[in-house]
């Protein structure tokens, strides 16, 4: 991994289209500004990993849930 030291207000370029600017440094938090082409998706890594995990988990128990939800529609059922 390439490691660079940057100060507040300094940037790095990735290729010629992507610019990452150090906006502010407060304690352990670094605020970054990112300029990149619109078709590039940018998100916090942990959110993406979280979403992968969430989707993988969400496929469990779907059929059972659907069975229960369908029963909800029947007026005499008391599951819901």
């Amino acid at each position, binding site marked *: 991994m390439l490691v660079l030291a940057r100060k507040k207000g300094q940037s790095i370029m990735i290729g010629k289209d992507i610019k990452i600017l150090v906006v502010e440094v407060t304690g352990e938090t670094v605020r970054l500004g990112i300029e990149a082409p619109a078709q590039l998706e940018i998100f916090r890594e942990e959110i993406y990993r979280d979403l992968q995990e969430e989707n993988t*988990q969400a496929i*469990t128990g779907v059929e059972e*849930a659907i069975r229960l939800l369908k029963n909800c529609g029947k007026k005499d059922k008391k599951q819901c």
Partner: protein
Amino acid sequence: MEVISMKSDRQGSNKLSFPWGIPGLEDYRQFTLTLLEADSPYYYLRSTDRPEIGLLLVNPFVLFRDYEFDLAEEVVAQLKIADQGQVAVLCAVNTSRGLDLATVNLLAPIVINTQNFLAKQVILNDRRYSLRAPLKINRGVDREVG
């Protein structure tokens, strides 16, 4: 954006294509979307190749009346959306801990172009929403709007 109307086959199903994959389920790109039953806000999204891989989806606007977000331009372009009227939004429901502890993924809604059936799970940059918003299954509320 609230009403989902799509031309469906006789079983009320639509074939959806997720060209960018669904995070965590990247191996599957083709899905079948079926409305659970008439007047229900719930849908069943199943992999065409592996029907045992499926997600329960819900129309979020029925359950979360204030839910709203701006669709990023890149998503509009990727899904070839020409008009807001052709957009449908559904959110995944996690029932792995049982229906009573079900949560809805409001942070990463599934956006569907109902004309060309391209779909994508989009991650919002919006701190108001969570990947796991508690879902209260309540027949009266759920079924008020179709």
